[in-house]
């Protein structure tokens, strides 16, 4: 899930698993268009979808969110700043008391736009980098993307924007740079946000080589425990099985507390499961988003008590709740079993036992393709130093 607001008063967890009248927050991918082609893109973005919500439709969605008293939306993409109506939507949302946190690769965050953002209340900006060094970052996000992101950060700082966020997907390659990420964030007075690498979208192909090793995950857990000020969007709750729970609700909020609206208005259970299996409906249907949230069969079923399945006999099930639904789904594991990155290694066993079944395949999605429909290679050849099993 993706609730970055610090959360207090924890023991409500069981009530939350039954769902709320409206999401606490939701993710809204505004466009599949992107000028980068990150190897791990959750939404397989690249090409704009011709059926993308129109400007008028996006404003109507904001009206609905305001009526439902959704406090804020996490806007992403694709690259949301590529939408010509991006600032119109931002202004409309904050004017209607729907706060906006948006994620950007920074390539379109010019000095002028940074000043414009600095003048808006209730807007948070997250700039994505996936390495503290250009070489680490650009191997995943493409040549020149690190420099572009740093320029965007410089622009925000020069515009006196205030505390923006630097968002990092933790990988096998960059997990050794956590302190360096902190140093970069401190140099801007920015807040560091770490999230989990999911095998979603193009991440299906990148996950085997890029997800942190078991040792790295333990290190990450202890690093996070010592730094409660680092935001995680409740991303690493599977690590809470290691002992003291990490800050946050430590549960899967998919369809219960959060969901995803994609660029064409389709509503999915969470940002990490853009797949028909987790499609609840569309904001374009009669009744709009509210009806999907409150009445879709999928969301109703997610709010039923879930089976612990193969995890039922594990003493840590209460802590990790079996981990991330998306991570299981896209690695071909049963949803009522261990997370592929289960800290006790049950996930690795399950992956091994999965045997010769069909390997998960990355959906082409909106990746850029050649004239025959074959996905173009990511712009930078990715070379991985570390062996797949450390």
């Amino acid at each position, binding site marked *: 899930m993706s609730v970055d607001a610090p959360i207090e008063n924890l023991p409500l967890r069981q009530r939350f698993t039954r769902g*709320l*009248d409206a999401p606490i927050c939701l993710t809204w991918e505004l466009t599949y268009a992107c000028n980068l082609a990150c190897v791990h893109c959750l939404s397989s973005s690249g090409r704009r979808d011709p059926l993308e919500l129109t400007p008028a439709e996006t404003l109507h969605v904001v009206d609905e969110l305001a009526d439902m008293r959704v*406090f804020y939306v996490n806007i992403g993409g694709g690259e949301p700043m590529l939408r010509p109506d991006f600032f119109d939507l931002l202004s409309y949302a904050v004017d209607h008391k729907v706060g906006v946190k948006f994620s950007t690769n920074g390539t379109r965050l010019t000095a002028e736009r940074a000043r414009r953002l600095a003048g808006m209340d209730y807007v948070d900006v997250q700039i994505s980098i996936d390495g503290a060094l250009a070489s680490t970052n650009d191997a995943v996000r493409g040549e020149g993307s690190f420099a572009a992101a740093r320029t965007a950060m410089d622009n925000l700082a020069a515009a006196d924007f205030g505390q923006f966020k630097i968002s990092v997907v933790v990988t096998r390659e960059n997990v050794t740079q956590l302190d360096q990420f902190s140093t970069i964030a401190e140099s801007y007075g920015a807040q560091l946000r770490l999230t989990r690498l999911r095998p979603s979208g193009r991440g299906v192909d990148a996950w085997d080589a890029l997800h942190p090793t078991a040792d790295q995950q333990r290190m990450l857990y202890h690093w996070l425990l010592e730094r409660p000020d680092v935001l995680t969007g409740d991303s690493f709750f599977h690590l809470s099985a290691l002992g003291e729970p990490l800050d946050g609700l430590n549960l899967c909020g998919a369809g219960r507390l959060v969901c995803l609206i994609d660029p064409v208005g389709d509503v999915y259970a969470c940002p990490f499961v853009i797949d028909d299996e987790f499609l609840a409906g569309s904001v374009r249907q009669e009744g709009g988003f509210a009806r999907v949230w409150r009445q879709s069969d999928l969301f109703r079923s997610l709010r039923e008590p879930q089976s612990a399945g193969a995890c039922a006999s594990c003493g840590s099930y209460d802590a990790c709740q079996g981990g991330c639904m998306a991570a299981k789904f896209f690695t071909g594991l049963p949803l009522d079993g261990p997370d592929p990155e289960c800290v006790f290694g049950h996930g690795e066993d399950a992956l091994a036992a999965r045997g010769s079944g069909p390997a998960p395949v990355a959906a082409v999605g909106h990746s850029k393709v050649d004239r025959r429909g074959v996905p173009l290679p990511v712009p930078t050849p990715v070379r991985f130093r570390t062996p797949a099993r450390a």
Partner: protein
Amino acid sequence: MTDERAPVPALAFDPDLAWGVHPQVALRDESFGALAYHYGTRRLLFLKSRPLVELVSSLDQYESATAAIVAVVPPEQRPAYRRALARLAASEVIGVR
């Protein structure tokens, strides 16, 4: 941006002052109580019972928090509700009017 990330001042909660929901806070009713979101600090909190929501929502009708507590909360529960209000004051969900 405004100064919303300034550290929360550790003001002592004075129940004899007049309090109300902080102007930058939105409450949303839920079955368990309410969600409270502070647009300035970006903090999300949970009011864990309906009576607490009613107390918080009625604060602005009384000359002091103590008066609101006396009017709304049974005697044996008043210390607990006073502590709850002190926590909400520290998180700026409620503020002095």
